[in-house]
């Protein structure tokens, strides 16, 4: 079988990959319906599905959403006052966001990495001097807005980013703030 046939089979099969999808879990069905309405109105590709048994919370419905756009979607739901109980990957319902940080001290500079995202600060001034890593398109956009700003004055990427890379950068940013805060 040639690669084209392989690809054709993969793309025209009955179960296309859902690896880039996530599920939003809610307390009850009316919240699911409200959330779906809010997200559809904002232009997101969402669908109502049944959650897997291991994460069922009592509500038999969940909202399937584009996983990578999770940060932006959660912000929309917060603003609409219908935040989910949890947001999980379809293919790994028990996976949790990264909570491991790598810290590297360059002397005058400190770098924190969370997952694939790194932020570096000049310890003498508290100014963000670099942002690196990541692969989603909001990373260069966020980097341009963070670099040159003082850590205590810069907007959190969790408030301004849109994707999971933005979310990871937000975690690195907040860990950096914790490390640099006087204790």
């Amino acid at each position, binding site marked *: 079988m040639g*690669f*084209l046939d392989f*690809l*054709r089979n*993969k*793309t025209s099969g009955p179960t*296309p*990959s859902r*690896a*880039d999808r996530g599920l939003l879990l809610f307390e009850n069905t009316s919240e699911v319906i409200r959330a779906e309405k809010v997200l559809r109105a904002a232009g997101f590709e969402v669908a109502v599905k049944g959650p897997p048994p291991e994460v069922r919370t009592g509500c038999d419905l969940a909202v399937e959403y*584009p*996983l*990578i*756009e999770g940060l*932006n979607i959660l912000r929309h739901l917060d603003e609409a006052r219908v935040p989910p109980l949890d947001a999980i*990957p379809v*293919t*790994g319902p028990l*996976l*949790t*966001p*990264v*909570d491991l940080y*790598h810290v*590297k001290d*360059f002397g*005058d*500079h400190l*770098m924190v*990495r969370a*997952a*694939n*995202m*790194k932020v*570096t600060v*000049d310890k003498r001034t508290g100014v963000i*001097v*670099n*942002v*690196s*890593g*990541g*692969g*989603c*398109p*909001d*990373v*260069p*956009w*966020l*980097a*341009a807005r963070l670099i040159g700003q003082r850590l205590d004055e810069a907007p959190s990427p969790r408030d301004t*980013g*849109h*994707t*999971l*890379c*933005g*979310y*990871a950068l937000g975690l690195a940013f907040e860990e950096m703030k914790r490390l640099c805060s006087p204790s």
Partner: protein
Amino acid sequence: MLAIVGTVPDPDLPIVEGEALLEGAALMVAGRRIPTDRGTPALLAAACAASATLGLPAPHAFLVGDQGLGHGSRALYAHLTDTLPGRDIATLVFHYLMPDVMWHDKVLFAVETMAARPRLIADAGFMYAAKMSGQASAYDLFTPDAGELAFLADETAPHPFYTRGFILHDDNNVPDLIRRAYGGGNAARCLLVKGSVDHVADAGGVLHTVDSPCEEALEAMGGTGDTVAGIAAALVEGGLSVAKAAHLAARANRLAGQLACPNPGSRIAEIVVHIPQALKQAMNGTGQ
């Protein structure tokens, strides 16, 4: 032809394509001036510098504005699926794009209908989509950093954000993570893993390591991973095997870094300007 696909953090930029020319610290594409600070413009800048050094034509850019909402990426995906089948491209690089499995599959399908299949290189968001789609092995080269290698090695993770801690913690053991990535079918035919030591590997294991010259500050600088991918792409276009190109690119990128004498706050344009000299040194086997 070497073609490079990606996004620019300017939501007002429509789809533009054409020859990419390096003018100082900016690129000119289809009459538009684009800063090369990081991301796909940094990769393109490095590819321009390396291509000129190798005597190759300037790379062809497919660019669109996208600040993370995905609208630009999806428009560019649609453009590619419409236009790639009629194109003559020898080396095709996919970079900062919104990871989207459905669009990934459509673009790869369009590639497979091209008269001659290009060598495929993926980094950043499109590499994430390639892994998620289960079709990583269709690619000739991935260029992950340590965090992204852990993501490739974790067969359950749909994005680096969800890489399991016991794998993420293991980033000092790059050869094991490479084995794990190939074991799960989540690696391209060749990997260039960027880190304090760069590793070039295939399914048989590590082929080359590059650890000198060592400029620690490069790890903190945005865009240094992009420049190494751009140099590798130009070398592949120049006719080198993918593994040899990756090996030389890793060495040239480090030499360019050394020539720039960077600190963790340095900008990528300070590296790009040294790529021609660094690439010549790497090809001649000279340099510190």
